[in-house]
């Protein structure tokens, strides 16, 4: 995605633009009284530079243009998911403290059904599925009623659908470069 572009401009120009574009369909008399504005540079346009709206705040006197960019890239994408098998993949670091661990392997063909939950077969015990690949063990919290503190032998039913919180990984890169 292209970075928002900001071209420095005199605030006088900003105001004239308010009049020209903002009120294009109406006679100029309906335009707002210009608000008091800080002294602004006039004359030649400063050289083009690239800043984000957030940076514009840091330099309020600069003014300038902002090229609108939504998340649209102009082309649809196809979801491609990692195909490593359970027991063969490396753990992913949590994105932030408290983030539910993401699933580093494929879940294709693994249906969480009322009679059986295939996730539990490895993750309830945290077995070493293959050399160096230890399944993340489901923590105490998942067997604990958080309201009463009561411990249960089975994972809480409300946590049974693992995929509500733990999500699979596509190979897609963030649309918005530069991170969140």
């Amino acid at each position, binding site marked *: 995605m292209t970075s928002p572009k900001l071209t420095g401009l005199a605030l006088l120009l900003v105001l004239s633009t308010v009049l020209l*574009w903002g009120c294009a369909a109406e006679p100029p008399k*309906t335009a707002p009284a210009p608000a*008091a504005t800080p002294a602004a540079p006039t004359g030649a346009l400063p050289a083009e530079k690239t800043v984000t*709206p957030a940076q514009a705040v840091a330099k309020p006197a600069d*003014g300038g243009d902002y*090229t609108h960019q939504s998340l649209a890239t102009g082309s649809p994408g196809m979801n491609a998911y990692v195909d490593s098998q359970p027991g063969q993949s490396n753990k992913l670091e949590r994105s932030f403290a408290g983030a539910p661990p993401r699933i580093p392997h494929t879940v294709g063909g693994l249906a969480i059904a*009322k009679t059986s939950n295939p996730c539990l077969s490895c993750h309830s015990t945290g077995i070493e599925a293959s050399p160096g690949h230890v399944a993340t063990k489901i923590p105490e919290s998942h067997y604990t009623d958080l309201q009463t503190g009561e411990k249960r032998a089975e994972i809480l039913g409300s*946590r049974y659908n693992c995929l509500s919180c733990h999500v699979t990984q596509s190979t897609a890169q963030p649309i918005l470069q530069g991170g969140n």
Partner: protein
Amino acid sequence: MAVSRREFLKLAGSSAVAAAGTALLLPGLTLGDAQAQDVTWDKAPCRFCGTGCGVLVGTSGGKITAIKGDPASPVNRGLLCVKGYNLLKIHTARDRLTVPLLRVGPKSTEGKATFRRISWDQALDLMASKVKAAQTSAGEASVAMFGSGQWTIWEGYAAVKLYKGGLRSHNIEPNARHCMASAVAAFMNTFGIDEPAGNYEDFEHADAFVLWGANMAEMHPMLWGRVVDRKLSSPGAKIINLTTISNRCSEMADEEIIFKPQSDLAIANGIARIILQRGAQNTEFIEKYAAIRSGKTNIGYGVQDKFAFDDEAKPATLEEYGKLVAEYTPERVQEISGVSPDALERLASVYSDPKIKVMSLWTMGVNQHTRGTWMNNLIYNLHLLTGKISEPGNSPLSLTGQPSACGTCREVGTFSHRLPADMVVANPEHRKITEEIWGLPPGTIPEKPGYHAVELFRAMDRGEIKFMWVQVSNPFQDFPNLTRYRKAATRDDCFVVVSDIYPTRSTELADLILPSATWVEKEGAFGNTERRTQFWRKMIDAPGEAKSDLWQTVELAKRLGHEKLFSYDKSKYPIPPGHPASDTSQTAGFYLEKALFEEYRRFGLGKAHDLAPFDVYHQNNGLIWPVVNGKETKWRFREGNDPYVKAGQGIRFYGNEKLDGKAVIWLRPYEPAAETPDSSYPMWLCTGRVLEHWHSGTMTRRIPDLLKAYPYATANLHPEDAKLYGISAGDRVRISSRRGSVEVYVEIGGRVTPQKGMVYVPWFDEDVMINFVTLDAFCPISKQTDFKKCAVKLEKV
């Protein structure tokens, strides 16, 4: 009160902490993480769906540094879905809008636009001049506002007050019109009062759950967790997934019943027929508590401009009702729906067996339906015929999609025809009450309702609307038949203002973009599906010059001479010492949120819409209204549970006093969809959401974990259709309707598989604007749009 880390750990249950030692305490921070930071914890409801999960928000250094499910919340009991955990990052993407931006080029539906930074004063002065000019040249109603169920209660209230009481324009609508207007219409014409009788505790009392076209596993995951918990912990508990698409709920269900689009009307009537045929109706309940009515038929689809419709309730008898449903024999139901007579019998047994407590659950499948009000009515019919309502476990529960669809849109009444507390603008008494509370001269509020959402945007396209202000919504991605409405936005004679936190497919069409504060950057309140009102405090500052929508509305009001609407006795509403005052309160110099809420409460007091005093909600995890004498009402309409039901009345649907306190069983037939597949457009298109993304994806697609989990919208097909059309997974196809087309990649065998003859495309992706394809047909009663059914063709590209 902010909760310190130590207090929080104490709150969270010392036994759990002790048992866990230094390991993971809760689905949030480790003890080490928590100790490493000076984290301040406070509570808030989640920003996303209508479930209303309680969230604990940890802040340090002016930033949100931790999120966890609130164990004290009766809604989610300490858990969150993946979107909830990622609340941490909804507001931090680097392209956050932080300054007012004014368009500097011509408008184009292509969305390429350049804007120039202006000051708030310039932005607000410009808006005021546009409003004045519009009202002078084109009348008071030429100014409009479009919001959503993501408005906080006071934001929606302030918007309604400014528009209806100040500007005298009823052209204010929420996107909730697309979301649950059918639910509201049916609550009103069945019970005479909005919102469900039961609450989430019903999940732990029910023996059977019938999903009427609701993929709860993805759309209401924490409520689905409670369904699953009940299923696994209670032998014999049964889930029936009645759906047009095979989905994750099917994996947990005892039975998946696939039905053809629109045929739910026939199925519900077919169930009613079986109940009556078995003599399984609760005759005593029906005689004492139900009235029977018929309405108009062949009611149309609203596809043409200025479509008008008013239903007409005519008294009917049980015999007449029986005669109508008798037409829905299992054979006929099968012909219409594809559901086998055996499956229909099993489904009917869940309702007809008096020993089975049943919850019916539905959302967009039923509501986004050109017979959405009817379909809501038909589900209530099943509960009223059998008396399975208003008691723990027997609960028709209309789920909501947005965090304050109930609290703001419905209760405050941010619709073109409504006022607070279920009142309507067409009723002179209701206008009078409103004018009195707002301190307005009699006759201020116009009697003619404004346009409902679709008609409002059609009016914009016709040139009738000169000023449109969008808050907390993304209509130019979300509206059906988008081509027309995006074109409307580019009219030179309509000034479009969009307030948002990120650049979207709507801000790109705006004349003026206003940067908004979101969620815990301001003080707020939401009302969820189960009538629970929840508050939160401001916890962090909004970036740059971003301001809350409430601040924006109040500031515009001041410039339009309506400052009085937001002037209160400052001494009565001081900002408490140490209170993290919002931008609005800071500017006002008093606690404006509290003043607004205390005024708003007056509408509902004594009218079965009672809310607790403002301060109460900051001390708890929300209360279910009506709150009478400090006590919430979990199950309405039943003596002993609901203070509005008098001793000896048993059950009283007191919203319908004109019907002697009876709820209405409606005669509603099957009628076909607005557009059905034919030889040119041979497939159904159904649109919807996915677990990881919220609505149009503007927040969730900026969060790396959520984007990576489900980056793009795909077209999901049945394998046999793929074969039929020579399409393979990963192929790019063009999906076209009579209105427009999109290109999208095909997925087969993903988490959803539509029935044969249907393609499913979610609408969160800004590159797959599926609403170019959808049809702007709506339910003539509720005016809610049907995003679930139109006819399309597929071509490989």
